[in-house]
């Protein structure tokens, strides 16, 4: 019997394939569907402080707009009992999920202010979340902001949250750090129970028919696996935090690679969005088949087996990797390439 179980931030999981934050888990039905499909834990979609603020201000604007301006219409909307403008709806989802599901529920939080990190993290813990993933999703577009300030922001957020809650805390990182290794280490040293590599930014696109900048959501593919794969391989055993690989996980082979790089879990979203939650079971089935064929008995055997620390040529993950690629390339003889 192959043992697929793993431990992530101290949470014992039946297997390492965890649905990452996505709309699939935005409501209780979705959470139940994921659990029924075999998810060992679920990362909920993020609670965005900015979105909460924006919704509040939008609500306030539209409730006030045109009000108290005209005799016959001093308002334009009925005053409702509540507007759920704060995190209550999200907290209730955690609460309901914990009641309904039997797997760990990992909340996700994107804050802006110190107050929100602290307040929302506390309330997320109170609502019953088993762990918290800090989704520090941030585009430092302001040229006045230095790299140091950006890094400080990550560290501070983690610091505030760790001081506030006792549940495990993961930090989801973007790949855009000059000194990724250092950043990972500082976060790990600051108490991050796990590092989740990497966040995907939704890049805007141009609509050339209308000359508009438009949001563009593209699901990941397996090619995107390689960036987190490299960094997990590099960081494995170099930081105390658990590592989670996210982005580009679509097949059992992607899963295996992630585990071998050193991930405690691999996270999947695009594949489930594209092909349904049944893919969890299918990937696991293929994983077990692959492991059986190669006589692996547990995923623990695999974890980190191809990390930088454990491969024959660790330089492959660093600059040499690039050099190697160049070295392996030879120009074809004229016409030869066409004939192949």
């Amino acid at each position: 019997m192959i043992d697929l179980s793993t431990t992530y931030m101290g949470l014992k999981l039946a297997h390492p394939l965890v649905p990452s934050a996505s709309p699939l888990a935005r409501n209780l039905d979705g959470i139940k569907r994921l659990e029924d499909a075999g998810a060992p834990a679920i990362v909920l979609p993020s609670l965005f402080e900015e979105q909460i603020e924006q919704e509040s201000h939008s609500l306030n604007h539209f409730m006030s707009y045109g009000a108290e301006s005209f005799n016959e219409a001093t308002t334009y909307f009925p005053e409702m009992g509540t507007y759920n403008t704060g995190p209550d709806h999200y907290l209730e989802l955690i609460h309901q999920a914990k009641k309904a599901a039997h797997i760990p529920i990992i909340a996700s939080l994107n804050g802006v202010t110190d107050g929100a990190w602290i307040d929302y993290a506390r309330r997320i813990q109170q609502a019953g979340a088993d762990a918290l993933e800090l989704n520090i999703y941030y585009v430092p577009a302001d040229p006045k902001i230095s790299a140091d300030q950006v890094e400080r922001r990550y560290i501070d957020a983690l610091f505030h949250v760790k001081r506030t809650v006792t549940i495990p805390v993961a930090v989801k990182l973007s790949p855009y750090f000059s000194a990724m290794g250092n950043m990972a280490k500082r976060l790990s040293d600051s108490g991050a129970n796990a590092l989740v590599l990497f966040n995907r930014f939704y890049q805007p696109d141009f609509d050339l028919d209308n000359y508009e900048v438009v949001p563009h959501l593209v699901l990941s593919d397996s090619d995107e696996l390689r960036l987190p794969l490299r960094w997990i391989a590099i960081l494995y055993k170099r930081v105390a935090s658990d590592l989670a690989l996210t982005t580009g996980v679509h097949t059992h082979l992607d899963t295996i690679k992630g585990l071998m790089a050193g991930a405690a879990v691999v996270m999947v979203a695009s594949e489930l969005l594209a092909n349904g939650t049944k893919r969890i079971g299918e990937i696991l089935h293929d994983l077990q088949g692959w492991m059986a064929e190669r006589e692996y008995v547990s995923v623990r055997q695999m974890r980190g087996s191809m990390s930088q620390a454990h491969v024959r040529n660790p330089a492959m993950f660093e600059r040499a990797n690039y050099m190697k690629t160049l070295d392996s390339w030879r120009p074809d003889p004229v016409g030869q390439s066409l004939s192949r």
Partner: protein
Amino acid sequence: MESSSPFVTLEGNEAAASVAYRTSEVIAIYPITPSSGMSELSDQWSAAGKRNLWGTVPIVQEMQSEGGAAGAVHGALQTGSLATTFTSSQGLLLMIPNMHKIAGELTSAVFQVAARSLAAQGLSIFGDHSDVMQTRSTGWAMLFANSVQEVGDLAAISFASTLESRIPFLHVFDGFRTSSEVNKILPLSDDDLRGLIDDKLITAHRNRALTPDNPVMRGTAQNPDMYFQGREASNPFYLATPTIVQNVMDLFAKITGRQYHLFDYAGAPDADRVIVIMGSGAETVEDTANYLNARGEKVGVLKIRLFRPFSVEHFIHALPASVRGIAVLDRCKEPGSAGEPLYQDIATAITEARFSDHLQTAANLRTLVGGRYGLSSKEFTPAMVKAVFDELKKAQPKNHFTIGIDDDVTFTSLAWDPAFDIEPAETVRAMCWGLGADGTVGANKNSIKIIGEETDNYAQGYFVYDSKKSGARTVSHLRFGPKPIHAPYLISHANFIGVHQFGFFERYDVLATAAEGAVVLINSVYDAETVFSKLPKRAQVQILDKKLKLYVIDAYKVAEEAEMGNRINTVMQVCFFAISGVLPRDEAIARIKDAIRKTYAKRGESVVLKNFVAVDKSLEHMHPVTIAENTVANGAAVPPTVPLNAPDFIQKVTAKMMAGDGDLLPVSAIPIDGTYPTGTTQWERRNIAQDVPVWDADLCIQCGKCVFVCPHAVIRAKVYDPALLAGAPETFKSTDARWKEMPGQRYSLQVAVEDCTGCALCIEACPVKDKTQVGRRAINMAEQFPIRETEAANWEFFKELPEVKREDSVVFTNVKNSQLLQPLFEFSGACAGCGETPYLRLLSALYGDRLVIANATGCSSIYGGNLPTTPWSQNKVGRGPAWSNSLFEDNAEFGLGMRLTLDQQTTMARERLTALRETVGAEATDALLNANQTDDKGINAQRERVLALKATLQTMTAAGGAPAEAAHLLQEVADALVRKSVWIVGGDGWAYDIGYGGLDHVLATGKNVKILVMDTEVYSNTGGQASKATPLGAVAKFAASGKAMRKKDLGMLAMSYGHVYVAQIAMGASDAQTIKAIAEAEAFDGPALVIAYSHCIAHGIDMTQGLRQQKLAVDSTYWPLYRYDPRLRAQGKNPLQLDSGPAKIAFKDYANNEQRYRILAQSYPAHADELMAMAQTAVTEHYKRYEELAK
């Protein structure tokens, strides 16, 4: 933090609704100003599950009209419910038939009425007793409350009394003055109400219910043999009612300590002069009488509470025996009567008493006069009360007088001294002049609540708005002091004046009401050193003469720093508290923050925090203004309200109203029959936009889309001879015109920047994008102030350029060419970015010179017809839309009547012309009778023919003899030979609900009328109540839980006739289809119905995105575009043409941009999901049906 005070501060409407809701099981509602607040609160409470006294959540049911509401209440009562409704004005009139029934059947019920003027020579939403006086004969008891406190109290007394008496009660209070006044009162607890109500009487009411378990019948048809006796059979109940009511009042006094009587006398016990009065004015009379008595006079007031059934006996007993003169004041007018209703009743009562053997009237009573006051919320002040008392001193006082106006025609009016002031010094009086958009009123309501509920002070707030929906001015009147405040009139001597908009100093005499030494807080960009010098001389003189103390703050800067946008409310509120000293500064700040939390906490913590930031930043930015002793007033003169070249009527009448001095107009200045000149908005330069569109001639492709969508008709285009540019202002822009029909011409697009509201719809409509910076269009927003003067001059030049000739070979029924047509609807006071007015602008541009418009009451009758200035205008030769508003419910019929007249006059003209064929000439006659009038060219040619005909007829008339009479008869109707168009316009509240029966009938007649429904999907004018046009899933007032039923398909219903032209349009989705549909409707020889998607402020959208929302509505197939043209059937074609395609987006992708949908998801997420799914199904099915029909 909950207050421990037993007091609450609330509006009269809430006081009434609170009692009515708790004592009802079924509430039928319909919106009408100023009673809508009671209905809205009831609906909100019901949606929130608030229970009545007996633990049940009342059913609140919106009806299609007040007539419907009364009918529903009648049915509910007959089957044993405790049922009520709320109404005003014409709404009450629509209830009268049912009121006769309910009373005739001796049914216990209370209707709450915020009394309001009736539409006569003009509509008025304001308060008087014209409406309730129409119900005197219905058999209902009528109880009048005079203040916010009394509204709650007498609502309860009415309820207890109706149960015992079985006579239904109308509980009346003054619209606006009481219904909308905020005052500090002691509310009635549930226990108070229970103590007043005998549950056995409720059981008795239920036992009278219709039930098949114990069947009886009511509503029989009766014959001459016994109907009369039947009318008399209920007499004992009416006779018993006064005593019942007094007993209830006595019981109420035991419970609450507040004693009322059927007739409450106040004043000198030995008064020689007494005013008899009902309603809020009684408060003014009482306070004035007390003031005068303290100064040696002997006067009093008899406040009538139970007006029906009128108890002569109680009245006579309440009147002081010493009285020598009585003035009865009526807040209504009955033209042609022997006297107004209350006067007549008092005269009758006194006469009866004189002839009675058991009633003693005052032995010395020598004088009884009646007077009218306070119509349409006309001010009724202590000075006016004194004038009435003074008049009674005269040997022959004027009878049937008026007070409060200057009647220089029939000389009914009494003079009064405006300087007379009785308000005690300890009452602090504050006035704040603000804009609707800056939040002044909301902050002041908060301030009143703070003072009323957090201090020992009493407090009162009353808020005056102008009649514009964009850039509206508000004036808040706040009083507070250690004694209860009974002052139902505006402040005339203010201790504090807040001027929240610096520009007001120029437009209004804002310091006229400043008392000596008053404090003035000014919001200005000018600092303490310079602000005085920037004031107009008028204000400077007042400041120096009255020794006013000035403070200045740049509130917009503070608001900006606090990320509050243009909401300066919190900033000005903090300054008000800091200066007024009503509370210690720190405590005031703490209270303000508490109030902010109470107001905004539901909307989110970050909203609260931003307000807190504004609070904390305010005081450091406020500075006292030091005025040196030798300062002289040398500011600029106030500019004239209207240009000096404005017509005489505009100068003498309209300008006075615009300046806020309409109260000073004498009767002789006012048109006798409600007839007013059109085209008057052109004289009102409101300058309300901070940013305005600026044309880029180089980028422009001259498509005309900006002109097409401009809701305020401030963007105009002309094509003209280049020679006309001689003498153009330097900054006037033009470019070569791109019209192949008009080669060698120039083109200008001009913006009337002083009339623009800055809505930016034009920018969104512009299809051009600058290749070097794609965010830039051919029309872009820029700050108005720096270009105001130059663009105003450019506008004046542009106006004088010739209009396009309509008889040229240019087809104007396309978007590009239609931009050149002069709109005859301009500069309305509609909301900035209004979704209705672009359709009216287009209609006026296409057919304005031959339009007669019947306009249903609602938004379009307010921005279209609310004085002082109105937007329907005229062309250079004086032709333009003739416009009228009859009522809300009868608009289709009103328009049909117009059509019938025009048709009849045309028939008469043709008959008379035919009879004169030989005299007029066969050729001319035939040309007139057979003229092709299908286009402008044809119509203009016919106008020429008619002109010639009239000249001929004039000659014939002058010649005398037998033909002269025939010529004269033809002359009378000759203009009817020129085609006129009747367009019936209004909103969905009219078309789908209250006026649907008439609309349906008018369509069925087959007559040649055009109906334009500007569908905002709510009753926009009254604040967004649901109509049958409200879509499934949207929240609206009266549908606070989200509308659970589908929108009525008005177009489909009309199409079912087969002979009606029907179109559904949305300008933002297809301007070409819009103009095509309107042109086809106009050309169709029969009834036409055009349903126009009209985005609205009540949708909760970014109004600059209104056109985008229209497009999304169509893209989602929620709003399919179609035209149903019965003429196509004759061509063997399907009359239904679907002009928009299958869904490109989901319904939610359209809906979720709108607060009306989002709000449900925020409040009831699961329910919202459910309704959204139902809505998508409805949209899909609806479109599919149309698709099948169009195949």
